[in-house]
């Protein structure tokens, strides 16, 4: 997920998805029984004649509103030679229309206390506007305005400016970010050439430089159509008034054909390159172990979220206990299931302690994965991992912005915006056998490894290893 405005910390390509899921509480098990029964995001849904799906979620607890617009297009939909384009286009959506030229979108919004941001992932592009309740009519008008005619106001000069902004984003988030080279290399290591996920969301400098205004217009005409979008209005508003405003704005946008999509590629089982060694401007080596895993919401996806918690969450977790506490060969361990539409990735990252090397910690971590697949989790491990996930879920739902985005995410990925209760159920249903089966996917024969070592200095050799 690539935010339009600079985040407070650099966000790696795949990690962004996880950060988002975590913020939403998607990587959760089930809430405490009493709360679980009550947890829901009330909404009403309808579809405009032009195909735009609208969801209204009313909450008068605070005088604020959120408008969330989710376009079902991401980096996986980019053409050959245009990597990074979906994200570049996201930036261009703020560059003005005929009715509200130049930076009018941001100026008008901020004048009245609103703010906005957006992100692009492999699968989707999501725009959100936040502001005081009295701003809703303006927010709807501005979002509808650019859905109606962004491309007609596109110019070479706008494209050139945002292209350079995005290239700076790439430099900041990857090239100058410690271990950023690992995230840049990951797609090609995992996916065969031609696969929709075989390139980074941020794209290459070369492809970004190749983008043209014609590309922008074609991309808009193809993907930014009402029938390929979902609109969520959340917060403190009168739904009948909101319907009228939506009808007057979005309702006047002509219908355009929904994009035709190629059949999804066959699931990828094995990585392309089993072992990759890289260097970066860092002081210590770090290793990433990667596996292809089931797609978001597919069988095994929730269990792998639980597996990640058992492996790395807290000092009683498996990897922490074995590699940090017992052997002392690692100083940091991390594990995560990065759920994606066409197939997910499970990542274990390890930082060897001084005196240890990457191969040693990989062997020890793999032994723990094998043990989990063979023996399964203890009842206590399973219970406490679910408890933590449920708390994350509960806390995530506090934020209006989270709820708005979650309705759209559930709609696109499950077909049901009200999937929350079922989502909780799917985590609640994960038992020891499911954890064993999920952990069994993380075998040595199916994994890829990326090692990043410190760049050699004049008085050190290039072999790396922990420094």
């Amino acid at each position, binding site marked *: 997920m690539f935010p339009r405005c600079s985040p407070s910390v650099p966000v790696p390509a795949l990690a962004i998805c996880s950060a988002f899921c975590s913020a939403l509480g998607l990587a959760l098990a089930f809430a405490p029984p009493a709360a679980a029964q009550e947890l829901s995001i009330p909404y009403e849904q309808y579809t405009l004649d032009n195909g735009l799906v609208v969801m209204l979620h009313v909450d008068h607890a605070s005088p604020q509103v959120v408008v969330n617009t989710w376009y079902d297009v991401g980096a996986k939909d980019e053409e050959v030679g245009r990597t990074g384009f979906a994200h570049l286009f996201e930036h261009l959506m703020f560059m003005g229309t005929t009715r509200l030229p130049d930076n009018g979108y941001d100026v008008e919004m901020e004048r009245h206390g609103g703010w906005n941001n957006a992100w692009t992932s492999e699968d989707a592009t999501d725009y959100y506007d936040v502001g005081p309740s009295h701003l809703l009519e303006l927010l709807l008008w501005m979002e509808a305005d650019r859905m109606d005619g962004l491309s007609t106001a596109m110019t070479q000069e706008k494209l050139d400016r945002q292209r350079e902004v995005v290239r700076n984003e790439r430099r900041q988030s990857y090239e100058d970010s410690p271990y950023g080279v690992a995230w840049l290399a990951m797609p090609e290591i995992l996916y065969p050439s031609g696969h929709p996920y075989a390139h980074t969301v941020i794209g290459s400098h070369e492809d970004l430089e190749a983008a043209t205004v014609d590309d922008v217009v074609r991309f808009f005409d193809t993907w930014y159509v009402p029938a390929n979008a979902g609109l969520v209005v959340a917060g403190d508003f009168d739904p009948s008034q909101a319907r009228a405003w939506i009808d007057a704005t979005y309702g006047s946008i002509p219908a355009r054909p929904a994009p035709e999509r190629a059949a999804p590629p066959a699931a990828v089982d094995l990585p392309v390159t089993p072992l990759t060694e890289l260097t970066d401007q860092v002081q210590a080596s770090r290793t990433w172990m990667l596996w292809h895993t089931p797609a978001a919401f597919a069988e095994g996806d929730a269990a792998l979220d639980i597996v990640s918690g058992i492996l790395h969450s807290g000092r009683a977790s498996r990897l922490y206990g074995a590699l940090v506490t017992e052997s002392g060969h690692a100083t940091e361990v991390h594990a995560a299931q990065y759920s994606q539409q066409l197939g997910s990735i499970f990542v274990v990252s390890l930082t060897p302690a001084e005196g240890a090397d990457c191969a040693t910690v990989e062997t020890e971590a793999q032994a723990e994965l094998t043990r989990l697949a063979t023996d399964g989790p203890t009842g206590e491990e399973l219970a406490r991992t679910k408890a*933590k996930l449920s708390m994350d879920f509960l806390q995530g739902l506090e934020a209006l912005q989270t709820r708005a985005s979650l309705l759209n995410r559930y709609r696109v990925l499950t077909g049901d915006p009200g999937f929350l209760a079922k989502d909780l159920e799917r985590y609640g249903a994960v038992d020891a056998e499911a954890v064993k089966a999920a952990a069994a996917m993380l075998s040595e024969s199916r994994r890829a490894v990326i090692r990043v070592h410190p760049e050699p200095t004049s008085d050190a050799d290039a072999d790396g290893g922990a420094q």
Partner: protein
Amino acid sequence: MSPLSNRLLVACVLLVGCPKAPPAPPAPPAPPKVFPVTPPVVTPDDSWMPTAPSAHKTVASAPLWHAHRPGLPLVSLRIIFPGGSALDPVDRPGETALSDAMLLRGAGERDSAAFSAALQTEAISLHVNTHRTATVVSMDCTTQALPTALDLLADALRAPRFASDEVERATQQWVQSRKDAADDPRTVASEVGWRVWYGDDSPYAHPTQGTIEGLEATTAETLSRSWSRRSHPAQARWVAVGDIESDQLIGMLEARFGDWSAVETDASALPPPPGGAGPLATGGRVLVDNPGASQTVLRVMMPAWAPADPMRVAGDLGVVALGGTFTSRLNALLREEKSYTYGARAGLTVGPGYGVVIASTNVFRDVTGPALTDLTAELRRIPEGVTEDEAGKARASRRTDAIEVAASRDGTADLLVSLALSGSPQDGQLADLKLGARADAAAISSAVSMLSFDQGLVVVVGDLDKVEEAVTTALPGDWQRVNIHGGDIPQ
């Protein structure tokens, strides 16, 4: 029968009982809708105001700020202990923060892993953050788990183990973390900036997380002693926000902490931080070499308003106009107009007795010179004042911030902590909003007129081979040169 069933029954009766109606004439086609050409006019509603927390006394008569938030069954608790990294011994920078971290790595009857598991079993989030002047313990949990959470909290604060093997492990991890920090050019810019801002001899100068040498010099005994000298219940401040009444919470706290007394002499008294500009902040210029970097970090720190300064609220609005929102001056110029960067921002940082405006951006290496020239020009221009448009935008932005914080349980708790840390009263946010609502462009301009780029500190982190000439040409002066991995700053 439910209302819905009633309606269905009536509908069925009507369908059965009515003769078939003649076919209706076809409706004329609806005229095509026309998109409204101009944006709607916004009618502001500024009636909302935040509710200040109630003030109470709790453990050892320490103050408790409490905000009752029924709804989701969650509670956020914060405890502030004065002290912080400014108390670190000269030869052990980082001792306070590492000591704080050890509170959660084994306490009472539980070792580190068992303590972590106990927290996770009840879905309790417990963290400790060390600031320069205080330690803040943060706990978030469900209302149902609060009794257990407070039991564990009491263990952490009153009976931390400081086991030597766990101390050794934590030290190793923290040393690694310091190495990671030195790999990140933005962190380096920040840490070098504060070091020069305060001056090498100041107890406030080093990073709160310490130095590798300082961390390695700590022992289980020094870490334990550090906490003993700071864990004075009478000096603490408590903040609670969530689904619990104050009386109920105070009773629970008294049951677990009522007999808590300090075992060491209070050593939390700090030397006063330098007010306004640090000793070296008068026109300081520092270049940090980061070979191979594709971007250059530009960071400027300017003396500003302390929390009690009557101009602070208006000044803060001026800083919002400078770099607090997407369309603010710095981002509009350096990102949107010139495409030098992914983003540029500025903000006001305040602590007890001081305030600093920090502006920062990462720019493409090849445009370092022009970017520094433009940044300098904007920072020199801001004392000339802001427009009414900018003033209105800043007021609206701060108001929205307040609404969002109020809507968030942990956000409210953290806001109250920041008020306490800066020495503000519990209704400080409300007072600021009211003051800010009256701050027009003239008031804001008057406040920002005191900002001085030439009194500020400039830190540049980049590939010196490629950018040094551009930097020193764009901003001539006495530049100090520093190695990114901790080379001493020449005095």
